[in-house]
């Protein structure tokens, strides 16, 4: 059996916490941008204007076909360069965090758009009919009647996707960004205590994600009763 030595964890806690902050920062920003952009994509996808719905379908299918690791690599290594050479965008020098956030946000938007589309479609068609019959325009009906219900139905799924996103932030190690997993790995590597740090990281992720999913479940049950 392996001899465990947990002694390097206490000293590394501040560094690990920095990593956790990065994980959370990526998660939160990507969730917000992902939902906003995902909603727009979902509306485009459902819109009767064909080019819009084709664009949205193409976007969603493309992003859902590529491994997230590849997307992150594209965004880290290639996209900034393209932006610079095509549009002459000036770049800050440390693109790791911003490229990771951009990559996650655009990638997750594809998934969020599918969730939201399903949410919109799960609202009974009669609701749109009822809103129209009251004289609301399409926009008013969407905004006042359909989307609020779609979001309410979808909150659990949106949050669950957020939890998945939080787990996936561990993949930013490809850009050597020290998110929580990266930080744990680096500490383990430096101190020759990789096994211990990996176990620790696994436990921390489990506690956070499990708690979060319990909260989502609780909310879901409350919703069911209402």
């Amino acid at each position, binding site marked *: 059996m392996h001899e465990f030595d947990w002694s390097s964890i206490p000293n590394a806690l501040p560094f690990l916490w920095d990593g956790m902050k990065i994980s959370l920062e990526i998660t939160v920003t990507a969730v917000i941008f992902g939902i906003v952009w995902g909603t727009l994509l979902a509306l485009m996808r459902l819109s009767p204007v064909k080019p819009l719905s084709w664009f949205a379908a193409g976007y969603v299918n493309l992003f859902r076909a590529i491994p997230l690791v590849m997307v992150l690599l594209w965004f880290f290594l290639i996209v900034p360069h393209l932006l610079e050479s095509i549009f002459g965008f000036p770049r800050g020098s440390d693109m790791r965090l911003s490229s990771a956030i951009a990559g996650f946000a655009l990638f997750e938007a594809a998934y969020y758009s599918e969730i939201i589309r399903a949410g919109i479609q799960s609202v009974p068609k*009669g*609701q749109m009919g*009822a809103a*129209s*019959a*009251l*004289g*609301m325009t399409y926009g*008013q009906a969407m905004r006042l009647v359909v989307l609020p219900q779609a979001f*309410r139905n979808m909150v659990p799924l949106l949050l669950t996707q957020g939890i998945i996103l939080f787990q996936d932030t561990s993949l930013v190690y490809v850009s050597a960004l020290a998110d929580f997993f990266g930080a744990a790995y680096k500490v383990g590597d430096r101190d020759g205590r990789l096994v211990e740090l990996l176990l620790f990281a696994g436990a921390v992720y489990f506690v956070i994600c499990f708690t979060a999913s319990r909260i989502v479940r609780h909310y879901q049950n409350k919703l069911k009763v209402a």
Partner: protein
Amino acid sequence: MISMNKVSKHYGSFQVLADCTTQVHKGEVIVVCGPSGSGKSTLIKCVNGLEPFQSGEIIVNGVSVGDPKTNLSKLRSTVGMVFQNFELFPHMSIIDNLGIAQVKVLGRTQDQAREKGFKLLDRVGLRAQAEKYPGQLSGGQQQRVAIARALAMDPICMLFDEPTSALDPEMVNEVLDVMTELAQEGMTMMCVTHEMGFAKRVASRVIFMDQGRIVEDDSKDAFFDHARSERAQQFLAKILHH
């Protein structure tokens, strides 16, 4: 008030409505019946433009529904509609359900809308439930709220699409009572329903549809006493038998 002239509609090659022609005058109560899939819902939804149709003409209060230049939202705000599944907005309280379109469509103030809302809830006997949510009411109560919501827009006529068929038998009458009262006050109404008791009580005319066609369009008495078409007679026999 409502006049339809040779209205036809199809999905692909399937004919849902074929040459439907009829008139509804002010104060009339028209009951529409017929077997499932015969196009009743579609017909009534064409009246306020919820379903587009391919040919023919519908004039509601002087406005042509099929005309692309018509402001459909505006037209619909003057025609009340009640659905089989109530279609209250589940994320809003009852009083907000009554208020939202008054505020956003008619431009009334929040206070005016609430006042009107309370008055109508009083009328359908649900004032006490104003702050509850639709999910907390029984089906019959929800349908009465839905009627109140339509009335809140001060409609010039009302359309009903099987307003009682999703209800438990016990609750059917509380809704029919509200509708009867409305009819007796002179509201122009078009009701899709199988409640022949209601039809006998308040209908001016009965329209019987089959396979997208208006097969009978008779005065109430003529219809019940001696429906001309065989299909309508069969239908009545089945419906009234038990």
